[in-house]
């Protein structure tokens, strides 16, 4: 029903795909087109349903294991969410942030109900970055302290405060000087954090599972230590649950695993049901925060977060999650996927170094960075769309929609097995090169990859166009 093209197998003409790519390159980003082509990620999504979409260019249907980094937890085109959205559209629009909204209040109530005890107050935000900016402003404003401690390789977003808290040089370097007062400590290192937190510290900000860095879960004891340190020094503890929230890790929020309740929690991504931007910041009504808000309730007015339509969508998302107990499904499916991937790793130690994760947030780390783009392609050919991490190309993230059935999970497993098999046939060529340090550096260099893989892609396309030699792989 949500098909744009006439159905499976309806393949876009080569000319039309070229036209779209050229329009995108000219008005948005040419480098991005090249980069995606090199990584075999240049698909045009259509027929976005449940856990799958079809690439309009090849007609190939794929399981979405990227899900916009965790946006489609309830599945793509979720009927409950769409029905709520259709109903909202009958009478509502974004609304006006300065007027009273029953929908804002209803969503706030629902969020507080599913959140860990103590997080009982709410701000809205327009997305992840905006939510992090709101959280950090709240912490600095309330404590009157300047410094914020984040972790190495952390990813919190791209707006001013969030970017300053990003622990990866890659996203920050061209935009310096950013905000002073941000310090980075190694993730999961209790000693490092113990010597970093002091009385000048407004907040410690952390993802309970680092996503973009390559799926690293914080130990429960480490999180408990953070809680103790913040309490002792009067700093606020901020959890960024933008990717881990809304059932992804087998609990409604990842912090439930450790039972550590932060003072401020930032949410976005899946709160929008894959259709409408929204975000939220939950916080505890601590005296230090309440005093601040008495004077500065409008410290981070959200003009677009918590819109009336957005709240209706988010309400439906939460209702669906509660009714289907989606976190339980995530935990079960996660265990199934994890143990199968672990088997594949054991069988292929020359390709896969490690499998790690929680719930349906699982990462596979390859031996070499250059394997990321190659595996993306091999997986796509076997019907699975997965992207390597921006902050760590050697790690591929598997974050499929949580509504995936056991059969769907088995399909992901079979595709991974087949893709690893296909990789094995290429490795005799690549691995000898990888033994030469100079060549390995070249292979792992993002720009060289883009050039090299683009050249390979053109060669493949050429072969496909020669009758008798190629033919599309469907």
């Amino acid at each position, binding site marked *: 029903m949500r098909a744009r093209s006439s159905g499976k197998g309806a393949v876009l003409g080569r000319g039309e795909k070229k036209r779209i790519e050229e329009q995108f390159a000219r008005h*948005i980003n040419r480098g991005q087109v090249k980069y995606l082509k090199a990584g075999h990620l240049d698909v045009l999504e259509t027929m976005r349903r449940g856990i799958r979409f079809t690439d309009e260019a090849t007609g190939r249907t794929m399981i979405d294991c990227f899900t916009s980094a965790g946006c489609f937890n309830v599945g793509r085109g979720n009927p409950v969410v769409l029905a709520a959205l259709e109903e909202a559209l009958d009478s509502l629009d974004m609304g006006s942030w*300065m007027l009273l909204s029953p929908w804002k209040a209803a969503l706030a109530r629902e969020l507080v109900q599913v959140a860990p005890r103590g997080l009982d107050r709410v701000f809205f935000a327009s997305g992840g970055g905006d939510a992090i900016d709101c959280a950090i402003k709240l912490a600095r404003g309330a404590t009157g302290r300047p410094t914020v401690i984040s972790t190495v390789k952390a990813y919190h977003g791209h707006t001013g405060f969030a970017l300053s808290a990003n622990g990866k040089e890659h996203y920050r370097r061209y935009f*310096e000087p950013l905000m002073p007062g941000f310090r980075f400590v190694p993730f999961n290192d209790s000693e490092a954090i113990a010597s970093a937190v002091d009385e000048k510290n407004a907040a410690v900000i952390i993802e309970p599972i680092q996503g973009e860095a390559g799926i690293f879960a914080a130990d429960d004891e480490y999180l408990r230590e953070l809680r103790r340190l913040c309490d002792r020094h009067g700093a606020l503890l901020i959890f960024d649950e933008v990717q881990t929230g809304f059932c992804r890790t087998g609990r409604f929020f990842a912090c439930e695993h450790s039972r550590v309740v932060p003072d401020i929690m930032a949410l976005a991504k899946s709160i929008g049901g894959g*259709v409408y931007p929204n975000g939220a910041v939950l916080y505890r009504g601590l005296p230090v925060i309440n005093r601040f808000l008495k004077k500065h309730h409008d410290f981070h007015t959200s003009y677009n977060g918590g819109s009336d339509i957005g709240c209706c969508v988010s309400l439906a998302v939460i209702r669906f999650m509660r009714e289907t107990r989606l976190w339980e499904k995530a935990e079960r499916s996660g265990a199934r996927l994890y143990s199968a991937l672990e088997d594949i790793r054991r069988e292929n130690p020359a390709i896969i170094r490690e499998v790690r994760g929680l719930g349906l947030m699982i990462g596979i780390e390859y031996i070499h960075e250059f394997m990321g783009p190659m595996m993306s392609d091999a997986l796509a050919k076997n019907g699975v769309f997965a992207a390597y991490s921006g902050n760590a190309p050697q790690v591929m993230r598997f974050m499929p929609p949580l509504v995936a059935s056991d059969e769907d999970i088995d399909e992901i497993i079979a595709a991974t097995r087949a893709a690893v098999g296909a990789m094995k046939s290429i490795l005799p060529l690549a691995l000898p090169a990888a033994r030469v340090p100079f060549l390995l550096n070249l292979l792992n260099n993002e720009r060289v990859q883009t050039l090299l893989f683009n050249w390979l892609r053109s060669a493949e396309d050429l072969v496909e166009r020669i009758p008798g030699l190629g033919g599309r792989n469907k």
Partner: protein
Amino acid sequence: MKTANMSKRTLIEEYRRFFPGAMLDSMRSEGLDIIEGKREGAFIYDEKGKRYIDCITSASVHNLGRRPRGVTAAFRKALRETDQGNFPMISREKAALAAKIAAFSPYGLDCVVFSVTRGESVDFACKLVRGATGRGGIVTVDGSWFGQTGFALSLSERADRGIYGPLVPGVDIIPFGDFAAAAKAVTDGTAAVILEPMQAENGCRAAYPEYLGELRRLCDARGAVLVFDETQSGMGRTGKKFFLEYSGVVPDVLVIGEALGAGVFPIAATVFTEKLNRFMNRHPLIHLSTFGGSDIGCMTAIAALELYERLRPWENAETMGRRLRSGLEKALRRRSRQIGRVSGAGLLLAVDFGNRANALAFCRSAARSGVLVKTGEVDRSSVLIRPSLLITPTQTNEIIEAMGKAAENK
């Protein structure tokens, strides 16, 4: 919908429970503790069916009136066909909207990065100019209001700016309209000069064409980038497609606000030159936005842009703006000498009330008379009047009459 039938008392209790109490007090002080129920065209209705003319339009978001039919219909169609999409992907919807924005924008501004909200667009603009020039300095003017996110906050004039810790360094705030200060501030270390050519939240203070021309000249001479934020003054609001048309000065970067989604879908954009995009092409995916330019939002915004092109609301904004302005001047001046002049252009007008208490009292009184208005965020003794750009002469007369009454009863 059950939610919609919540009584005001219950709703206020819910607000007290989940949101800061001071927020309610602030709403009340502006007469805005009103339940926003049904909304259509120029109007909002509360839970009891009382009708108000919306002269806030969510700070120039609802430029085409509330729930413009073509846009809601397009959104409905889009949600049956697509969703937000995987954000890093090549997308037909994103490409089509970007091309449409390029055609709608001043000549030479051909490249687009999407975002959800104004602050995000401004933050990106600041990052773009730093990345592209390799310089750190950002010059802006006093009286600005760019939004809530990190860079936007660092550039804005607000009383609480100092309490969020050390903000983005390298920002130089110079007096608005001061040629000599600009000449001194813009140096070889300046990445960009960024300003709103009309400062809506600051009593609709407008830059003289000569000043904008001088900034253009200084930027060109020093190799700096000129950035205009037309979130509030653009998209037909001031009687032209963009306010910059009054001066003929074209910036290198233009921030287009949420009027792009016509109040149906949150989407904003930063539009810039191909030359600046060379930096982004060299560093793809260096700035990401999960929700910015979602495919479903792009389809909605395409319908909105088509409506802008078809209705040319800037023309109505100019005519009705003139009628509203002269009507207000007469109606308000006649009743009170304390009320100062009306500033602005098109349907972005500000009335100066001399002090905040008077401005607030007027807002409350206007709400009682059936018109919703709000004070400025920077000049807090000004009241802004920003109705739908499609208001009719009758509705304009109604606003004038209600404002006159409000001034009398305040």
